Every structure is written in structure tokens, then in C-alpha cells.
């Protein structure tokens, strides 16, 4: 203390304390190094700007925020203010990868000497225009065709529709919704006179009973499934009934699962209607004042319906469907007696020979029991693609249709559209054009010489594909796609690189009639252009530049929305400005201050509905919805000893359609969808083990798949997904179609399964 201060060689006590103190301080804050990270958590993926947009994939149409850094999409997250409340599924999350996958088509290509070679846009478009012009001049307008997609923007489908029907003058204008939703369209139009669901997603928040039939909602509309589960979580007494041949993930959550044989829906619903009548669950007010009855072309009465469904008592229907009578009775009781019942369905019903009958069977159940038009009570057909509704169904971009629910075969409708489109009377042909299957048949026969295909992959998705793939080699195929090669571009004579998702701007309409805007936030790669640009260019070169006057997304939108005011699909009030501001709006929306319509056909809620009654089914001349009397038909493609098994097809959550978009995504590389689900009983019978390569053969073709023994399928039934390009299951499927909608029956055909001999 009082010692002399010796200069020590090391640190003094004071220095030591100083050093220790500073070190401790640094040690405390060192983990926070990085400027921003000192004060706040930083996101793992830094984003410069977030843009409001929508998911590229399914018909749910989830709102998402798209994060862009350096002109690249780097991240996506759910939009908290959209109907999906910030949720996305795995495909939604992978939107951030899809623009950058391998295999993007970057430049136009022309087939020279059998090989596709790079060309300039001028060369390619000149060739396309020349060949189309030649065909039209020599063989007439019906020698050319357009095959579009429920994934094109509304502006694109609308423009193609106008060009082909009112410009070129051919009704050979169809699209892949024919393979997906056509039976839903005819189901709704035969029941209500107008297409599209009457309810909206919000109805799921109020239902007490979900009747899910022919839909693996958990895998195919996962965010809607979560919404239904939320309802059950908040109200555990909510009942879920699932009708599905397979014990899917969705069925595993059901309170009651009816594993009916594929194609027996009509028998089931007739039997349920019989139960309603026998147990007094018929809404008499509906029957007397708001319903009409019809069988084929004959008018019928409620008494006729009673007699008709009495032919399907539970015992008989149960035998046809392969389930128990008790289950039918319980399902019927739960459906009818719940306070609000909501039905959900997709491909299970639509992709059948009796697709239309199945669709309107479900609608009839709702109409008869009065589960209609109230929050939570509605028959809700779910759309598979993101823009089958807005882009194809509402714009009438199918070979028998015209915009706004009009029909080509109806002279008044043709005249209305000719006037609205300002073309001379008689320009639109009176005969419906080729529907999808017929179109590719015509190409194979040589009746259609040139076909423009956009944003779809018929080489993989047409049923009985071997037949039609050969045909595509014959025709002059122009294919616009974002990826090359696909099972369709390999047959193309001209490949046009298309921009994808947020590389182009446009509007789509999802399953609940919500029209919403997809912004352009990055530039397309290489020389890719938007499909609208391609169509506008094509129109000019083929001599119809004066018809296609709207050349930008906004201009086309304005033209179309003003035209829509002349129909019951009126959305004139959905301006581009509103779309930019809102998270979409539900049509009908006739004026700019109208908020959109949640439930249709209700006077006071639906601006198209009039009168003071409970409902106004304005789509029908007598204002009444129609209940149809349909009968169960035995399967086409019978089961024999040679083809004893039922072949069913479908999808899984992680991949989209033909995998052109999801196939290259790095995270999804480990998901291989080319397996055959086979029940252990059948595997034992045919001497097949897990993992064996098997050949599935039908009367039309065969495909090789890897056997996956599973209790998900019933004995006697096998299942494969449609996704893989390496194993084309459509070589096996049947191109028979529903007589009303022309939609092919992918869900059932007769096959044999044998182990592949090495």
C-alpha cells in the first residue's frame, strides 16, 4: 500500500481490470455482430421488397407476398390479409424456386429436318402465321385449332377465344379444363342454368358437416383443408364425411369414410336422397316454390323423384358401391340433420363417365334438404387449376361456349357476342368445335392441320395417350410453354418460350369466384414473352390486328369486364385499380362500389338476383333450380379375367400436374411419384413384392411402375399418380368421356398387373 510502486513487468492491477472488463463486454456483444443484427433479428433470406401476389398452383389461389432482391424472386410467404390467412402449402412455398428451374425454354425453336433448332421470334411467328393462313385459306377455318389452359391468365384465354371464334371463325377452341372441370360446369349449368359455385370459402367457417366426396382435399387443396380443420378445432362436434375409394390422408381424418367403388356415386346419392325422403328431411318450401324436376329431356315431379330414388334403397346401393347400408344411412342422416352442410368435390366426381350426373346428384342433395344459400350450407365444387374459373369457364373458352355463359349453338348468343365484339353477323360458327379428345383425334386424322397449344401438356395428360401422341406428329403443332422439353414440346414444329407466373402480369379467378391480380415483378429469362404478347403478335400477323385492339393486360381486362356487364357473370365493377389494391374480389360485382358477392342466387345478396323470395335462380327461365333424375350405369371397359383390377389415377401434394414446373425444384427431387399402390391381397395373388417393377396393362396400352404395397387402396383396385413423364400412366387410361361434358374418365378402367420379367 505505502510501498514504492515497482514497475512490474506484466500488467498492473488496474490494467488487468481494464482488459478483463473490456473483454467481457466484447464477449457479451460479439454474438450480435453484424450491423442490423445488433438491434433486431434479421431474416434468414434478406428481401429488398415484398409484392402482393398469388400462388402459381392450384385452384385455392392463396395470396402470397413475393420477396424480390436484385430482380430475382428470393422468398415467398403467405399473405396474412388474404383468405388463406398467411398459410401456404409446400408447392406454394416452392414458388420461390419455380422460375429458376432447369429446363426453362429461353428462345423460339423451329423443327428443321426432324430436329428442333433455335430461331428468332420473327422467323418463328412468321412461320406460324404462314402455315395457319395457308390452312385456313385452303381447308377453311375449322382446319386450325387452339388448345389452351386453366393456367393461362384470363386476358390470354379471352384474347385467344376472341381471335379464334370471332376472327378466324372457328369454334375449335378448347382447353385442358375439359379434362378437369367440364362435368362440374355441366353439373352446375344443368342445375342452375349458370356455372360456378354459389358459395365461397367463408362458408367453411360456418359448417357443421363437411361432405367431402371424390376429393383428397388434404393433398390437393391443402389450405382449404386446413380451413375446414380449423372449423373442427374450434367446434369439435363438426362432422367430416369422406367418400373416396381410397383411404387417403383426408379419409383418415373422417368421422365416417365411405370407400365406394369408382363410378358408383350416382347410386350413392340416389340412395341418400331416398333416405332423406323416408326420414322426413325434405325442405318442402324448396320443393314447392324453388325446384323443378327433370329426367333426360322429360319434365318430372317430386313424386317421380320419390319413385326414382326408391329404386336405390340402402341395401341395393350398398351392394353397388361396395360399402355397408348402415354407412349410407348414417351419412344421409348426418348430411340432412346437421345445421349447415357443405359439400366439397373435385376430380373424383368430374373424371367419370357419369361426371355430370354425379355433380348434379350432390347439388340435388343440397337443394332437397335446404342446405343451400346459408352460411356454411352450399354444394362447393373445388376447381383444380388456378384459372379454370375466371379464364376458361367464365370467358367461354371452350369449343361449345361463348363468354358469360353463352353457347355457340344458340343463335341469340352468337348474335350478342358478334355485336359486342363488333364483328359482322355470321362470323361465329353455329356448330360447336372439337372438344379436347375429339380435337386430338382430328389432328391424328388430319382434319385439323394446325394447332396452337399454350400452357398445357396434352402429350402427357390426354387419356389413351399413345393414340394422340402419334397424331401430334402429324399436325403442325405450335407449342408455347415455359419449359422444354415436355411431352408436348417434343412433338412441336414450333416451340415458343413463354414467361411464367410473376414474369408477366394478369388476372386469374380461383375456385370461389375471386378474381385476383398477379403482378409482374421480375423479367422473363432469355427471350421468353408473355402468352398475351404471343397471341397479339399472332393475331396481327394472321390479319386480325384490327379485331385484337386490346394489347396490354389492363386494356384486355377493361374490354372483357365491360362485356361481362351484358351477362349474369357481371364483374364490371372489378377495375384494375381495385385489383391492385385488394386481395381479389368475388363476382358478381356490377359497380365499382360493390364489395363483391359471397352467396349467389339470394335476393339482397346477389346483385343479379331479384324479387323478395328466398332464392332467385335467375339462370333458369322459370326461376327454379333443377333436380335431375339420373340412374346408375354399369362401367364401360368391363372387368374380365384378363383385366380384373380397377385402375384409378390421381395426384400427390408435393407435385403439380405433369411435373414440368415442380420437377426441377431441388427440394422436391426426393419425391418420386411413379409408383403403383396395390393392396397386399392382390400383391400376394399376383406374386408381387414391395419395390418390384410391374407392368400395368389395359386394352389400350401399358406402363411400367414400381409396386408399393399399401392399405390405402381396396383389394381389387390399384392407383397411380399422373405426375411422372418417365412412366406415362395415360397410356393405360380410357378415353371414354361423359356424354354431356365430354370430360374423360380417368378414374376408372380395367387393368391387369403382372411382375415385370427381367
Amino acid at each position, binding site marked *: 500500500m505505502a510501498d514504492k510502486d515497482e514497475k512490474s513487468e506484466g500488467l498492473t492491477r488496474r490494467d488487468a481490470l481494464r482488459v478483463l472488463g473490456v473483454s467481457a463486454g466484447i464477449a*457479451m*456483444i460479439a*454474438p*450480435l455482430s453484424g450491423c442490423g443484427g445488433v*438491434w*433486431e*433479428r*434479421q*431474416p*434468414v*433470406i434478406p428481401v429488398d421488397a415484398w409484392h402482393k401476389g398469388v400462388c402459381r398452383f392450384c385452384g385455392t389461389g392463396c395470396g402470397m407476398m413475393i420477396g424480390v432482391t436484385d430482380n430475382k424472386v428470393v422468398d415467398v*410467404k*403467405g399473405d*396474412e*390479409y388474404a383468405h388463406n*390467412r*398467411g*398459410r*401456404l*402449402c*409446400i408447392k406454394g*412455398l416452392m414458388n420461390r424456386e419455380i422460375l429458376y428451374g432447369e429446363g426453362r425454354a429461353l428462345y423460339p425453336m423451329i423443327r428443321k429436318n426432324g430436329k428442333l433448332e433455335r430461331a428468332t421470334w420473327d422467323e418463328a411467328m412468321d412461320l406460324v402465321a404462314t402455315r395457319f393462313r395457308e390452312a385456313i385459306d385452303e381447308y377453311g377455318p375449322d382446319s386450325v385449332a387452339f388448345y389452351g389452359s386453366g393456367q393461362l391468365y384470363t386476358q390470354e384465354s379471352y384474347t385467344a377465344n376472341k381471335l379464334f371464334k370471332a376472327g378466324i371463325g372457328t369454334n375449335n377452341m378448347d382447353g385442358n379444363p375439359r379434362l378437369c372441370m367440364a362435368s362440374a360446369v355441366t353439373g352446375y349449368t344443368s342445375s342452375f342454368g349458370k356455372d360456378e359455385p354459389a358459395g365461397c370459402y367463408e362458408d367453411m367457417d360456418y359448417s357443421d358437416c363437411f361432405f367431402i366426396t371424390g376429393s383428397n382435399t388434404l393433398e390437393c387443396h*391443402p389450405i382449404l383443408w386446413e380451413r375446414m*380443420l*380449423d*372449423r373442427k*378445432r*374450434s*367446434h369439435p362436434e363438426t362432422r367430416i364425411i369422406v367418400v373416396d375409394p381410397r383411404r387417403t390422408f383426408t379419409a383418415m381424418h373422417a368421422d365416417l369414410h365411405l370407400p365406394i367403388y369408382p363410378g358408383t356415386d350416382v347410386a350413392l346419392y340416389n340412395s341418400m336422397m331416398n333416405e332423406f325422403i323416408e326420414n322426413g328431411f325434405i325442405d318442402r318450401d324448396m320443393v314447392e316454390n324453388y325446384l323443378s324436376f327433370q329426367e333426360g329431356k322429360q319434365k318430372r315431379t317430386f313424386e317421380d323423384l320419390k319413385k326414382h330414388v326408391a329404386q336405390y334403397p340402402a341395401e341395393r346401393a350398398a351392394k353397388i358401391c361396395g360399402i355397408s347400408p348402415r354407412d349410407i344411412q348414417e351419412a344421409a342422416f348426418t348430411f340432412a340433420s346437421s345445421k349447415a352442410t357443405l359439400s366439397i368435390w373435385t376430380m373424383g366426381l368430374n373424371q367419370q363417365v357419369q361426371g355430370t350426373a354425379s355433380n348434379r346428384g350432390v347439388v340435388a342433395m343440397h337443394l332437397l334438404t335446404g342446405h343451400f344459400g346459408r352460411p356454411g350450407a352450399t354444394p362447393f365444387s373445388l376447381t383444380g387449376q388456378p384459372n379454370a374459373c375466371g379464364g376458361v369457364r367464365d370467358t367461354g373458352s371452350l369449343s361449345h361456349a361463348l363468354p358469360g355463359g353463352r353457347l355457340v349453338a344458340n343463335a341469340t348468343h352468337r348474335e350478342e357476342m358478334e355485336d359486342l365484339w363488333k364483328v359482322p353477323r355470321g362470323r361465329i360458327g353455329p356448330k360447336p368445335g372439337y372438344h379436347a379428345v375429339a380435337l386430338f383425334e382430328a389432328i391424328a386424322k388430319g382434319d385439323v392441320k394446325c394447332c396452337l397449344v399454350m400452357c398445357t401438356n396434352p402429350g402427357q395428360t390426354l387419356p389413351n395417350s399413345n393414340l394422340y401422341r402419334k397424331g401430334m406428329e402429324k399436325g403442325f403443332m405450335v407449342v408455347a410453354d415455359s419449359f422444354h422439353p415436355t411431352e408436348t414440346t417434343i412433338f412441336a414444329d414450333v416451340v415458343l418460350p413463354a414467361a411464367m407466373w410473376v414474369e408477366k402480369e394478369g388476372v386469374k379467378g380461383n375456385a370461389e369466384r375471386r378474381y385476383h391480380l398477379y403482378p409482374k415483378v421480375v423479367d422473363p429469362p432469355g427471350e421468353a414473352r408473355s402468352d398475351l404478347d404471343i397471341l397479339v403478335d399472332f393475331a396481327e400477323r394472321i390479319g386480325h390486328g384490327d379485331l385484337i385492339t386490346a394489347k396490354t393486360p389492363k386494356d384486355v381486362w377493361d374490354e372483357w369486364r365491360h362485356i361481362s356487364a351484358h351477362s349474369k357473370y357481371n364483374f364490371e365493377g372489378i377495375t384494375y385499380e381495385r385489383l391492385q389494391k385488394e386481395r381479389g374480389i368475388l363476382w358478381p360485382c356490377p359497380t365499382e362500389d360493390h364489395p363483391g358477392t359471397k352467396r349467389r342466387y339470394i335476393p339482397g345478396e346477389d346483385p343479379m338476383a331479384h324479387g323478395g323470395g328466398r332464392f332467385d335462380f335467375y339462370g333458369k327461365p322459370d326461376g327454379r333450380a333443377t333436380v335431375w333424375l339420373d340412374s346408375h350405369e354399369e362401367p364401360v371397359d368391363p372387368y374380365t379375367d384378363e383385366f380384373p383390377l380397377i385402375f384409378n389415377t390421381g395426384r*400427390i*401434394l*408435393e407435385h403439380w400436374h405433369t411435373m414440368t414446373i415442380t420437377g426441377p425444384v431441388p*427440394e*422436391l427431387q*426426393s*419425391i418420386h411419384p411413379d409408383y403403383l399402390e396395390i393392396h397386399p391381397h392382390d400383391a400376394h395373388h399376383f406374386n408381387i413384392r414391395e419395390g418390384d417393377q410391374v407392368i400395368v396393362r389395359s386394352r389400350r396400352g401399358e406402363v411400367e411402375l414400381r409396386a408399393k404395397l399399401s392399405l390405402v387402396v381396396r383389394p381389387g383396385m390399384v392407383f397411380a399418380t399422373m405426375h411422372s413423364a418417365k412412366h406415362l400412366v395415360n397410356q393405360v387410361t380410357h378415353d371414354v368421356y361423359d356424354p354431356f361434358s365430354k370430360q374423360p374418365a380417368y378414374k376408372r378402367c380395367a387393368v391387369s398387373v403382372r411382375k415385370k420379367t427381367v
Partner: protein
Amino acid sequence: MVMRNIRHIRRAWMRLGLTWTWMSLFGSNLAFAAEGNTNIVPGIGLLRGIGIASALGGIIVLILVHFVYRKRLSRGTYHWLLLLGLFVLPITATLSSMATVMEGTKRVEACASCHVMDPFVNDLKNPASPTLAARHYKNKWIAKDQCYGCHISYGATGTIAGKRDGFRHWLYYVTGTYSDPIKFVGSYSNSNCLYCHEGTRIWERIKSHNALRADLEQDLVACIRCHGPPHPLPQERTGSAMK
């Protein structure tokens, strides 16, 4: 009073001891009363009491020893008492209060004490809510300290970033400078979900989880992006305190 002999010293100690005991008891009860919470998690109250008692006791010891009794204490006694007052009791107080804060702030009531949290706690305890928080609470998937169950960076064994966040939240809150509706900043760490869920049979059999495993572990994709929302969305918050 001058301490001339051992008896005086002993008396001084007794008085000191008694004073300290009374002050501690009084202080502890004050602390409990101030919180208004008689539902004491075992341990927290004790820790809190010890902390308060040590702090108060230390101050009193120091004041008495240095300003009042200094001259009457032997040097040795004085130094021992200083040791007590300057090191032992402060350390006890620090440890106890740290433990109290670290453990006490794990409780739902601690989070609820700021009114900006009202919509979140209301939702948590609402059996009809389908948010992740409400479901984990309702089904007792997290038995207690439910907020902390998912926001574990705040505990004594949590991250320094968690402490910084807590400080920042407190600062914004008491100065009223937070932006309403409040948002979670940055990426939420999936480890909070995965440490319970990963490895379970149910989780492992989902193809999507296996496909995204690497992304999930690096927080490139958040579990809550598919399975959320964890809490009511801004437009759904009710019972919120208006700014």
C-alpha cells in the same frame, strides 16, 4: 453507544439480525402484494423474497455498519460486515433477482403484464381459437409457461439475442414507440417447433417434411408458413389495448 465489551458487540449483532429479519419479511410481503398475485409458482416467490431481502438487508447493513456502528466495531468485525454488505449480500441479491426475472418472465402472466399482449393472451386461453398458441394451450401440449414453450430464447438458458429482444421490447413499450399492430421481426427459429416435433413417427412419415428437412433446419422455410398462424393476425386481434 460505545461498544466497550463483548456483550455490547453481541447485542449489536442481535439488533442487526432482528432488524434484518423484520425488514426482509416486510420487504417480501410488499413484493408479493405489489404483484397482486397469490398464485405463486413454488420457488419464484422464495427466490424473489431472498433477492429483495438481500438487497434491502445489504443496504441497511452497510449504512449501519459504516455510519452508525463503525467506531464501536472491531476492525475485524467491521471488515467481515463490509464483506457481507459489499459482496455476499449483493451477489445473493443479484443471483436471486436474475433467477426471479429469468424464471418469472417465463410465466404467461409475465407476458400478459404488458397490455399490448392482451389479444395474444386472450387468444391463447380461448378454447374456440384454432391458432397454434390456443391449440397447444387447450390440449396441454405444453403443460405450463406456454408462451415460453415456443419463445425460449428469453430464459436463463436462452440466447443473448433473446435478452436483447426483451430489452428492446421493454424499451419500445415503456416509451410507447412500438408500431401497432406488432409484427415478428426476422425469421422465427424452427428449432422451437422441431425440438418437440422432429423425430416423432407422425412428423417423419410426412413426405413434405422430409423434402424440406434441410430448409427447415436452416430456417430457410418456417414451419409456421404452412401450419400457422401461430397467433391471431393483425386484423383478427380483439381485446387489444389501443395505443
